[in-house]
């Protein structure tokens, strides 16, 4: 069987500030299963990058191994990508970002890649405050190896073969806040509107921005008894807040009555607008975010939306004190101390 991707381009497609349509942000034809949530995530990334008018080639797509990690091939064809080692995307992304701080980094991972084999790397990349949007396409199951539970599979949920998961599930959002992440959100692959708004904010955020996205596996984890199915999500979802993202140059035109919204200014001047901000969950407060997550867990709901943000924190390069010029642009002139200094170093060893 062969696949071909349509090259047809509607003449009325919306062009962004760079004069590009969203088609210029697409990738190769997906080989994921029909209906896979990951494809919706890829589509949302395409839209978010298009709407932000990012030059596609200035994005670096980093991934590990798994269905999720194949996904970067299916968006942003003009961006370099790196399908690295299972669970090790965070370290490769760290090195890449150290080398060139001017690119935009999108890390794409899955629940097995992040919560099992890569749990250590996940924790430490957050501690390092890497400037990257870290997407977890979370379906609670290993797809490529056909149906084993991952560490995000809910305690007591059933695998497709009927095995009950008897181990505690890992809440990546909660762990991320604990580890010091400065932007943490949760969403659903089917909620494009919320996803695109969160992604635009996450990309604009300075520092590590985690979006844990419930992304049902239509083949191995969409049955009755699963806690990662479409039906389960719809029955248990609870929006923490409906968010809009307002880029730097746009004027804020609110459609919601005053008093119900809360604006959060990001470091670059863009704004996250939260619509049902009157609840007790304060997204600027770490403890409040953790309490909201704990409460949701107790009440057996899935809390989505922006969960926590610290818009003014330092990212890795601030901490390292790296020069503003990307390190990969430096050559002999800047890097090699030269013969004279070597002579004095030699003299010091005599």
């Amino acid at each position, binding site marked *: 069987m062969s696949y071909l991707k349509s090259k047809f381009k509607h003449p009325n497609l919306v062009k962004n500030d760079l004069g590009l349509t969203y088609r210029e942000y697409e990738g190769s034809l997906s080989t994921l299963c029909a209906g896979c949530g990951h494809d919706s995530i890829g589509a949302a990334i395409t839209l978010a990058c298009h709407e932000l008018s990012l030059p596609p080639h200035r994005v670096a797509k980093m991934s590990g191994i798994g269905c999720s990690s194949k996904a970067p091939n299916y968006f942003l064809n003009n961006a370099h990508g790196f399908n690295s080692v299972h669970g090790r995307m965070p370290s490769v992304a*760290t090195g890449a970002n150290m080398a060139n701080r001017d690119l935009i980094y999108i890390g794409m991972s899955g629940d097995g890649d992040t919560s099992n084999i890569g749990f*250590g790397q996940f924790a*430490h990349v957050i501690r390092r405050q890497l400037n990257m949007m870290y997407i977890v396409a979370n379906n609670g199951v290993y797809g490529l190896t056909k149906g084993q539970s991952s560490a995000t599979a809910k305690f007591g949920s059933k695998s497709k073969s009927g095995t009950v998961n008897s181990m505690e599930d890992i809440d990546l959002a909660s762990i991320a806040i604990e580890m010091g992440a400065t932007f943490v959100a949760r969403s659903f692959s089917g909620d494009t509107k919320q996803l695109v708004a969160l992604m635009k904010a996450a990309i604009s955020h300075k520092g590590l921005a985690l979006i844990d996205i419930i992304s049902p596996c239509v083949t191995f984890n969409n049955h009755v008894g699963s806690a990662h199915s479409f039906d389960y999500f719809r029955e248990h979802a609870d929006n923490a807040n409906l968010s809009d993202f307002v880029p730097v140059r746009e004027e804020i035109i609110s459609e919601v009555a005053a008093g119900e919204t809360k604006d959060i200014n990001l470091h670059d001047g863009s704004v996250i607008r939260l619509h049902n901000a009157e609840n007790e969950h304060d997204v600027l407060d770490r403890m409040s975010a953790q309490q909201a997550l704990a409460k949701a867990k107790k009440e057996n709901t899935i809390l989505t939306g922006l969960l926590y943000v610290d818009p003014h924190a330092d990212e890795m390069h601030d901490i390292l004190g790296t020069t503003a010029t990307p390190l990969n642009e430096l050559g002999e002139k800047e890097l090699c101390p030269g013969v004279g200094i070597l002579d004095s170093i030699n003299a010091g060893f005599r």
Partner: protein
Amino acid sequence: MKKIESLNEFVIRFANVNGTGSASANGLFAKAMFKLGLPVSPKNIFPSNIQGLPTFYEVRVSEKGYLGRRGDRADIVVAMNSQSFAGDIDSVMPGGYFIYDNTKDQSQNISRKDITVLGIPITDMCIREYQDPKQRLLFKNVIYIGALAALINLEFKILVDLIGKQFKGKDKLIAPNVHALELGYQYASANFSCPLGVQVAPSDVCDGDEILVDGNTSAALGAVYGGATVCGWYPITPSTSVVEHFAKYCDRLRIDPVDGAKSFAIVQAEDELSAMGIAIGGAWNGCRSFTATSGPGVSLMSEFLGLAYFAEVPVVLINIQRSGPSTGMPTRTQQSDLLACAYASHGDTKHVLLFPSTPSECFDMSAASFDLAERLQTPVMLMSDLNLGMNDHFSKPFQWEKKREYDRGKVLTAQDLDEIGRYGRYLDVDGDGICHRTYPGVHPDKGAFFTRGSSRDEYAVYTEKGEEYVKNMERLSRKFKTAQQYVPAPEIISSDIASTLGIIYYGTTEEAMAECTDILIDNHAPVDRMRIKAFPFNNDVRGFIASHEQVYVVDQNRDAQMRTLLINELDISGENILSITNYDGLPITGSYIAGKVLEHHKKFASKNIQVGEIA
């Protein structure tokens, strides 16, 4: 008793308790020998411990230029550790000298009559002179160095100058240190008949250009000069000081004096997997990137090394080899990671290895490894060891050509991309197996690709077709063959007298070879020598083996790993290739190697040599 009499040719052994500051004082002694113009070889033989266990520091001084361990007992032993006292007495050569702290009289415990025993009440002197308990401990070491100066006729001023240099900027430490030296010097002058039979005198045997430095400092400096900017690492003895020195030199040489901005980035990772991932990410994105580790780290990095081989990422790994797993022997030296590194990872992989022998080679090869990695677009591993990395060595100075440029390999710019047709990341356009890279973000609509392990075609498009995989693997083999012409050629030293015997060695075995060769000549067994500097092996290596009837391969590991690598990679019979191995954790000695050669060739055997004798 005949006392040892020797000028500028001796071994002194210091037995201390670790964590008492002795390494610094013993280093001062080694440096003083160096200042006299004498080839000197200090070895710190230390435990996996912070404080309390026996530690030894052995200094060989050799005007003849023998820099390997002599390997027998020492001419002078300074015993400062009651735990190892009995063994320390045994470790003195007949006719040698035993210096100890006799604050507590130990004469009843010294039964040997064939040595000269010199007791100095060092603890008493410290208690009398110093109030601070820490100073009482520290200055013990400085006092015996002062006493040694009188005993071996070392000019006192040399020590004073060295103290001044060592504590430059911490000037208030100079006077108490010099005072401690004087205490020792005066005690020895007043109580013993100085100098002893073992003495030193200034020498002009060297050209004065040499430096005394350890290999890890040198490799770190090589990385600075080689333009490394990204470093991911995880602490592990004996490699830790590579990155510590890299950071130190970067802080000194790579920080903008105006705004303090750093033109380097170092991250201490959570483990070695992450350290290698960081180095690979940086290299993928166009920086010269490296990590430094030791055996266990190599094990953890192996999966990533395979990815870097297949994805063709030019990463550098500095491996400071040591003995096997866990804690204890790992603070001792070995060359035991050869096969683990040459074939690191899953699938069919082969890696470029470099074998430095001296600090100046650590510097050269460290800098060159970045050129090689980028030229060949593959991981390059610098195979140092604990002996080279952590001990000071008498070395040629570091050198750098004024107009030297980095070889960044085949990298396409935006303009290059505009000028070509379809870009193929894995398209071998000139037949050497090396393709063209692009850095991420280089061009709006050309040159981008998805980096993967094994499953891609020449245009980096995903494929699982067997024939594409085979084609790619054959190209990688071709590339590895191309590497032969870029890596350093072996150093071959032919005997003055035609010989059918050849010795092959690599790395720190070099320091034992001058003495080994002289012993063999004395025993009418001249040999040709070849020092291997790199893997893959080039034709000179094959030629050397083919042109000798008998070849010995010297390995500082149990399983003769270099011999295995030679036989396997050159596809030759091992019949005439004999192995000499030493893997007790101590640096190999010239007399051991010579003894093994003579053992195999009994017709050359001489009663002058005790076969295989090592301490």
